C-alpha cells in the first residue's frame, strides 16, 4: 500500500516559514514614496541655507595614490583591503550533545553544525542523531548544503543528506528554508527526495527564553513527514515522528554551556502502527543532560 500526497502541500509546508518574514514593521503607509528622497533638513534655520540641486560629479576612474607610489603596490593594497573586509570564517556550533535517561534504556543524542563562509554564502555540514547504548544507533544523519541568505532573516539550504541509520541507508537531495521569524522564533523546513524517489519533509522550531543573563530555557520541536509509505524504513505516509524538547542551560560562558532537560519523542500515524507491530515502542520520554558548545 503506497499512498501519495500532492506536491503542492509539500511546497506549502516549506514555504510557510517565509510567510512571516515581511512583517518586519507596520506597513500602514499606502502612499507612493517613489522619488521622495528624505525629509528636508529640519535644522536649516530659515531660508538661505537650503542646498542647491547641482548634479554630482562623475565617479572618477583614476587612482591618485599611483602618482606617488608604484601602481602595482597601490592596486595590491586596495585588493588586500577589500579582501580583508570580506570576512570569511569557520564556526563549529554544537546545539546539543547529550545523555538521555529513559525507561527503554539510556541513550544519547546530538545535533550540530560546522560552517565556513561569509554573510551571504556558507558551506554547512550538519549532523543529528540518536541511539540507545548497547544497540545500533536509531538515527544518524549527515547533511552538507549551501546556505544562502535570502533576506535579512531567512536562508535557503540546498544540498544533500545521507542517513547512515536507519537501515537501509538512504541518500537525499535537500532543499530548505531556515531563519528567524517574528518574535524571535527560530524556524526551518526542509524537503528531502531520496535516491529511491521517496519524498519527505521536516519542520523545526525553537525559541530561546532568557530567564536570567545566564539561564536560558530552550523549547524545541521537530516534525518529520512522509509523502508516501516507505516500507523498507518502516515509515507510513503522513506524519512520521514528532520530537519535543525543553532544555534549560546555564550559559555563563557562551562557548560551553551545560544543560538539563526533557526530551519526548513519538512516532505518529502509520509509522507508529508499524513500530508497534514490530514490537518497538512508539514513544519515549527521557531526561537529558549535555552541553551546548560554540567554537
Amino acid at each position, binding site marked *: 500500500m503506497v499512498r501519495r500526497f500532492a506536491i503542492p502541500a509539500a511546497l506549502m509546508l516549506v514555504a510557510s516559514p517565509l510567510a512571516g518574514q*515581511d512583517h*518586519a*514593521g*507596520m*506597513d*500602514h*503607509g499606502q502612499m507612493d*514614496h*517613489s*522619488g*521622495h528622497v*528624505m*525629509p528636508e*533638513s*529640519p*535644522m536649516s*534655520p530659515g531660508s*538661505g*541655507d*537650503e*542646498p*542647491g540641486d*547641482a*548634479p*554630482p*560629479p562623475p*565617479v*572618477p576612474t*583614476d587612482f*591618485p*595614490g599611483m*602618482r*606617488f*607610489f*608604484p601602481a602595482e*603596490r*597601490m592596486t595590491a*593594497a586596495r585588493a*588586500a*583591503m*577589500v579582501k*580583508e*573586509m*570580506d*570576512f570569511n570564517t569557520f*564556526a563549529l556550533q554544537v546545539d546539543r550533545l547529550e545523555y538521555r535517561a529513559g525507561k527503554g534504556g539510556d541513550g544519547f543524542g546530538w545535533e550540530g553544525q560546522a560552517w565556513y563562509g561569509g*554573510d*551571504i554564502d556558507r558551506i554547512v555540514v550538519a549532523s543529528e542523531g540518536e541511539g540507545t547504548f548497547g544497540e545500533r544507533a536509531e538515527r544518524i544523519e549527515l547533511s552538507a548544503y549551501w546556505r544562502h541568505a*535570502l*533576506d*535579512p*532573516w531567512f536562508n535557503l539550504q540546498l544540498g544533500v543528506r545521507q542517513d547512515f541509520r536507519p537501515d537501509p541507508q538512504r541518500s537525499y537531495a535537500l532543499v530548505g528554508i531556515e531563519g528567524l521569524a*517574528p*518574535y*524571535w522564533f527560530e524556524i526551518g523546513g526542509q524537503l528531502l527526495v531520496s535516491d529511491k524517489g521517496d519524498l519527505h519533509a521536516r519542520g523545526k522550531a525553537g525559541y530561546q527564553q*532568557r530567564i*536570567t*543573563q545566564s539561564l536560558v530555557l530552550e523549547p524545541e520541536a521537530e516534525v518529520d513527514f512522509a509523502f508516501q509509505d516507505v516500507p523498507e524504513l518502516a515509515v507510513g505516509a503522513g506524519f512520521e515522528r514528532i520530537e519535543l524538547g525543553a532544555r534549560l542551560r546555564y550559559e555563563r560562558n*557562551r562557548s560551553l554551556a551545560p544543560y538539563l532537560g526533557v526530551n519526548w519523542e513519538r512516532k505518529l500515524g502509520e509509522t507508529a502502527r508499524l513500530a508497534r507491530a514490530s514490537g518497538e515502542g512508539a514513544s519515549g520520554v527521557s531526561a537529558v543532560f549535555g552541553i551546548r558548545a*560554540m567554537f
Partner: protein
Amino acid sequence: MTPHDTFDRSLLERRRFLALGGALAGSLGLAGAVPVWARSGTSGIRHASNASGVLSGNSIALQIGESHFATGGRSGHAVTVNGTLPAPLLRLREGQTVRIAVTNHLKVQSSIHWHGLLVPFQMDGVPGVSFPGIDPGETFVYEFPLTHSGTFWYHSHSGMQEAEGLFGPIVIDPADADPIACDREHVLVLSDWSPIHPHEQMRRLKMQGGYFNRQRQTLSGLLAGKDQSLADRLAWAQMRMDATDISDVTGSTYSFLINGHGQAENWTGLFRPGEKVRLRVINASSMTNFNFRVPGLPLTVVAADGNPVQPVETDEVQIAIAETYDFIVEPGTAESYGVIAEAIDRSGQVRATLAQRPGLIAETPRLRARPVLTMRDMGMDMSGMEMGEDGAIDLSKPAETSMSGHSMSMRDPSVAPGVKMGPGVATLSPMPVDRLADRPTGLEAVDHRVLTYADLRARKTNPDPRVPSRQVDVHLTANMERYMWSMDGKAMSENPDPIPFRLGERVRVNLVNDTMMPHPIHLHGHFFELVSGEPGHRARKHTVNVLPGGKVSFDLTADAEGDWAFHCHMLLHMHAGMMRVVTVRREGQG
C-alpha cells in the same frame, strides 16, 4: 630658547623624576604650563619596554612592534609603538613640518593614520586608499606640514591593530599664543582592551549578534518590573529588534582604560587647588563610546575634535569613538576628584584620579542602569504616533498620517531609494529626525547637564560661508543579527563606487542612521560643519556620532584633492563594511 628646547628639557626632567620616584602610580604635572604625558610602572605596561612618553621636534621615529599587555587580571598580545600602550604623545607645533619615520617590526603590514590632521592625502596612512601600507621590516617616512593646532590622535589603519593597542595622542600647539588659557594640562586617552583578538571578536559576533551582550532583557527582569513592559517587548520582538543592543563588544571582555591604566592602576593627574586644568580627552577605543564626567566639577568644553569652540559648561559629555574634546576644569579644595569614563552600555567603567598628591584614589560612582532603546532610536518620529498611557506606543494602531504620509514600515525601500536592499539591511528608519540637539543614548534622563552637538559653536567664524550647491544622502545600514554593516546597503568588500566630490565644492552630506546603534562617522582629510543653529559659527568636526534611527547633516568644503577614507569608527563596523572611499578631484579630471 625655542619651545622645542623647553619640551626636550621637560622630558629630561620628567625622566629624572620618574627615575627618582619610579614606584609612583600616576603622572605628575611639572611646574607652569608644561603639559605632561607620563605613565608609571603599573601592571598595565609592566611588560612593555621603557620608552619616553613625549616625542617632539621635526624628526621623529616610531617603531611598531609586538608587546604584551596586562590590566585588571586580563592579559594578552598587543601591538604598540615604541613599546608602549598608548603610543607616545607627539607634541608638535603649528607651522612646523614634521618627518615621522615609521618602522614596522610586525610580521604583517601596518600603517599609521594621523586622525584629524589635515595632511596631503598620500600622507594620510590608509593602505589601499592613500598609500600602499608599510610592509614588514619597511620604514615609511611621513612628511607633512602642520597647518592647524589642537588635540588629535594617531592609530593604525591596518588589520584591526588599533584594537590591539596601536593608538596614541597628538597635541599641536598653536603657532601663536594659545587662546585657551590654563595652568596645567593633562592628556587622557580613553580606550578599551580585550585579550580576545578583534578578528575573533568579529567571528563570535557573526555566530551570534548578541554574543558579548550580558545585559539583555530577561524573564526575571520582566517579573521584577524592569526594562520594557510586556507589550513593548512583544512589539519589539515582533520586529526582531533588541532594545538592549547598545554596544557590540562590551565589558564582558573589555577592560576600560585611561592612559593605559585600568581601574585598579588608577591613572592619576595632579593639580593644585584653584588651577585651571585643561583636559585633552581622546576616545581611542575600538568599539566603546564613553560617558565622560568628573563628579563634583563642571566641565567647560573649549574644543571639539581639535577645533576651539565657544566655551560651554556642562556636567557630562558622551565622547564617541575617535572624537576628542578639550575641557577646562577648576578643581577646588577637595584632595581628589574622580575622572569617570563609563561605557555607554554601562557594562563597565574606569576611574582615574585628579589629585593634589600621588597615591590618592578618588571615589567611583556606581554604574548606572543600562539604557533601553526607544521608538526614536528606530527612526520613528513620536509626534505623529498614537501614544498609549505611560508614553508607550501602541504599535497595533496605524500612525497618524500627519507626517506627510510616511510609511511606518521598518523596511520600506521608498524611504531610501539609494540603498541596495538585501540581507544586510534589516531596517530602514521610516522617519529619521535630526538628532544633533538630542542628548545621546543613555543620557536622556540623567539629572545634570549633558552636552549635545547643538551646544557646540565654533570659536572662529566658519571659513566657507557658501550655501552648499548640492546634497548627498548616505544611509548607515546594518543587520545586527547577521552582524553585517554597510553604507547604502553595500559593504566595502563589494568594492562600491566612491562618493565623488569636486575640488572646492561645498556639499551637504546627510547621514541617516538606519540602525539601532550610534555610529561615529569619520571623514579623513577634512573638517566639516555640523548643520545645527545659525550658519557662521557651526561646530567643525572630523567625526560625528549619528544617534540611532536619527539623522545628521554636515556641510563639507571638499578642499583636499585626493582619495580619502570615510567610515564608521566602530572598528568592527568599518571592517565589516561600513566604509567608503571619498574622491576629491578638480572639475574635468579623473
